[in-house]
């Protein structure tokens, strides 16, 4: 059967990340590793980011992607992975919180 129906390569974050890597770009991968309450994207969802701040995929419904991209550029520089937490309990909730009231944990690591 035709696999292209089941894997949308043009929008798939991990396939895009591999393409960036082949082009010699520095890449960070952000992954939702835990959620509490209502969270827009399930555990395991990816956002991939290059050193210029280009990104594909999502870890929320657009609520916290900006903050993750900023942190990811740091992670690419330092090579040190980071665990980020977002949600209503967080101090920064009003700036980059999840309007749905959930909480998520996002692991950001450099590729390679």
């Amino acid at each position, binding site marked *: 059967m035709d696999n292209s129906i089941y894997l949308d390569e043009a929008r798939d974050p991990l396939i895009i990340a591999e393409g960036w*890597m082949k082009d010699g770009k520095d890449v960070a991968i952000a992954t939702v590793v835990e959620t509490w309450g209502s969270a827009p994207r399930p555990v*395991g969802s990816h956002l991939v980011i290059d050193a210029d701040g280009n990104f594909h995929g999502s870890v929320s419904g657009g609520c916290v992607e900006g903050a993750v991209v900023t942190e990811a550029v740091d992670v690419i520089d330092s090579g040190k992975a980071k665990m980020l937490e977002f949600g209503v309990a967080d101090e920064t909730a009003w700036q980059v919180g999840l309007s749905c009231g959930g909480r998520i944990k996002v692991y950001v690591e450099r590729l390679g």
Partner: protein
Amino acid sequence: MDPYALKTVNAERRARRAVILVTDLGDGRDRIVREGDQVAGELGAAIAKAFRSGNSASVEAEGRTFFLNAYLPQPRLVVIGAVHISQALAPMARIAGYPVEIVDPRTAFATADRFPDVALHAEWPEDILKRQPLDSYTALAAVTHDPKIDDFALKAALDANCFYVGALGSRKTHAKRVERLLALGATADQIARIHAPIGLDIGAASPAEIAVAVLAQAIQAFRSRGHESKDAVA
């Protein structure tokens, strides 16, 4: 993430094979686990659970925190027979998250008019399945009632270890089918995996009701993978 791990995950996903990427959240090291790989202890149990459910999760094991990212192929349903049941089954299954492909060499049945927005193959199962083989994340329902069309596909589904194999027909019809499949080289254990008569026993009468029964049975089979007999794992 290790570049090799990324390449492997993508290659396995393209090939429709399940993998789990296990990341130690303490030191960032990761490794690939394929379905059937033996992993001991608490971590192994959590990995087995993730393969079964398809759910990614953080787990505590051996005093460390691991993140298990499960990449399972999307389950799909291949229906042999562009018949009345299939017309109801295709939209229902798609809504439930099981995209449908329909195979029927009879061009009067397999028309875009009867099956709008469905992947339709108006050819013999022998031809399409050679080019695009079945796999263990595929369910196959054979509903033509015609041995010339159904039998090859059923044998192929058993050999590919499809997670669900169902065949339309009465017990009497199925008894004759069993004889034919044995002659084709299927083993008795393989044949025992065929759900026939097809569908959960909900007293379905109309084609649409039979479609519900088939879809429910396929979902049940998918969600209980790994709980059935061990010989089902090829």
